[in-house]
């Protein structure tokens, strides 16, 4: 997958599963303060992204540092690179 395909799939998945306005899905958007996702949504988000990308991400320590949508994009791009390496 290209970087753009990853970003598009993340945004499409979040918009569909969490009823988010696609216009709100900016890289600088914070999950809690800008997108209104609570801690339950965060757990769900990891599960639906694992299903969308068909890879395990919940055990990756780096996921705890994710604060914004751009962080999530970068995390998944790195995970793709690590899997391909």
């Amino acid at each position, binding site marked *: 997958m290209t970087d753009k395909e990853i970003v598009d799939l993340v945004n499409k998945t979040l*918009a569909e599963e*969490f*009823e988010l306005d696609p216009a709100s899905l900016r890289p600088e958007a914070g999950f809690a303060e800008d997108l209104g996702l609570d801690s*339950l*949504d965060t757990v*769900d988000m990891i599960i639906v992204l694992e299903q969308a990308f068909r890879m395990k991400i919940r055990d990756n320590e780096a996921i705890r540092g994710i604060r914004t949508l751009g962080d999530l994009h970068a995390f998944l791009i790195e995970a793709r690179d690590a899997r391909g390496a």
Partner: protein
Amino acid sequence: MSGGADCPCPPAPLAVSGRPGSLPLTLVLAPLLALWTVLVVGLGLPVLMGLKLVRLRRLAEAARLVIWWYGRGCVALIRAFVPVRGRGLSPASFPQPCIVVANHLSVLDVYFMGAQPVWNMCFVVKSWPWRIPFYRPFMRLAGYLDSDRLPAEELLARSRAVLEAGGSVLFFPEGRRSRDGNLGRFHSGAFALAVATGRPLVPLCLAGTDRLLPPGSRLLNPAEVTLAALPAVAPAPFAAGPVGHIELRKLVKKRMSEALAALRSGADPHTP
């Protein structure tokens, strides 16, 4: 996915922000509601505090009963001046204990919960109602849950405890009032609770409360209000996968969206 995207035909906007209210209706109904509130607070609070002193084991249930009767009184007063319709509001439609999810249009919505038949109902509410001095003691005694203050996991654990004690739990899954009458984004808590406990979920649709008291208005409008309980949804088929509650949330929202569209067009939604 937006709230309105689930509806096959775009509904007409319901909100009437900016519409001037009715001064005569407000001058008659508001003092009556205020008097009823003073009566309930003046009599109910001392009684409940007395029951607390004698350590009544079922104090929360007693407080919920008082609140429910207060709501019923409010609905009766409102009904004397504006039409209030109920659909599917028989006790059989609310298999107890259950989880009720209602759309949110107006501050009056909580008062209209007196029109539904379950008295032992724990409300999940945001932080601001806790700041109303004469409501706060009742909410505390009734064991209401503050969705802003409690972490999601604890909110679910406490909601689960309410269900296990035989009480039902009411959520407004949008978490805020709709400003255009359409359903907003649904949070997942109520649906995760239903899947985790196996308790049925009752969708409750409200229409017209935003016209009765538009957001930002202090004046009441003579508007018809309808409450319609949709058939209860059993969560068992959604318990298989890790995100079954998301599918349950989508299904319930779709049914509520269709029912609200039917109400707006003057048709009756499918009720039990």
